[in-house]
């Protein structure tokens, strides 16, 4: 039987790490994808996500209930902001952005479709990278992760009006 988030959080507050790891399994893909789209580098995204789960586990007793997903994404978003700030101070080229040998397309996809998909993804990522971080975060949460405006407002700690103006 699938336990709901609030039930798992209550167990976590009593020190049950297994319950927390169940939450990790549930939201790790979402948190990682948010970090990846924000930072554009898989290693940095892994670090930001791992740090977010560590912080969440350390501070779970301070979580006052409500939407766990929004709380976790808020921590991930803060980590991403920190990383971007650090990157601004000490700019470096991630290894991933250097030219690399293309991978073979999956068998279910024709080579043409595969190349088109890669190009489209690259263009979207380029477009996302060109907008300011706060706006990028709102777009990722709304149009990629499919969060509601209310959840986005919680994650970004701002009003609904601000969310609306950032997405417009």
């Amino acid at each position: 039987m699938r336990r709901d988030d609030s039930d798992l959080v209550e167990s976590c507050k009593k020190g049950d790490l297994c319950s927390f790891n169940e939450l990790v399994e549930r939201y790790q893909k979402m948190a990682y994808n948010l970090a990846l789209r924000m930072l554009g580098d898989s290693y940095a995204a892994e670090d930001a996500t791992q740090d977010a789960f560590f912080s969440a586990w350390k501070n779970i007793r301070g979580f006052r209930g409500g939407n766990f997903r929004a709380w976790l994404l808020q921590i991930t978003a803060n980590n991403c902001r920190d990383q971007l700030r650090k990157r601004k101070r000490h700019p470096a080229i991630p290894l991933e952005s250097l030219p690399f040998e293309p991978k073979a397309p999956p068998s279910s996809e024709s080579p043409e479709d595969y190349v088109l998909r890669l190009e489209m993804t690259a263009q979207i990522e380029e477009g996302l990278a060109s907008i300011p971080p706060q706006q990028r975060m709102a777009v990722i949460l709304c149009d990629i992760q499919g969060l509601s405006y209310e959840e986005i407002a919680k994650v970004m700690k701002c009003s609904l009006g601000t969310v609306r103006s950032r997405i417009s």
Partner: protein
Amino acid sequence: MWAALGIFRKDNCSKTKPKLSAYMDRRLNPQELAEVERHLANCHSCQKELDCLETTVALLHRLPQVLPSRSFRIAQVEPSSRRTAMPLLRLATAAAAVMLVMAFTADLTNLFPTSPSSLDQEGGPSSTSYWGDIDGKDAESPTAENQTDSGQISSDNASDGPGSEEDLEATEAGWVRPLEYGLAGLVILLGGVTSGLWLKSKGSQKQRRN
């Protein structure tokens, strides 16, 4: 008149365009919704903008969700039974630093009197020789003979010899510098040890995470 109408439409466009995202997400109130729909029915440019926005959002939806290459599950870490000296070291470093600042401030504002020259002029012991004396017998001032039964210092020896007012001044002037150097050394030593231990613990934490 056409020009005025053009400006009016432009003004409406600038009001409508920021609302297109919210319109797509059905986040407009009924009044705003009616306004936007009315404008879209007559404005080709805004209709085009809306189509473009819908295509972009559709592309964003098609962006694949990337699977992380590893799990972010947290491993059970047994709490360390060994007590760490870090809090104590940090406290000691802070205390030494505060004392150093206080000593420097007092020295700079002349709270410690520094005038041993009067002794030199009167042929008394120089500040260097005085340091030699202070370790010896003379340093034991006031002596037993100089004390009255009630335990007070007699006035005969109040103006000359060790234990006099000038001597006390010289003593104060003498220990200020060694105190400052000692405290500075202590701050550097404690700060170094604390930073070293902190870096070591941070490194081991990172290793544990990986």
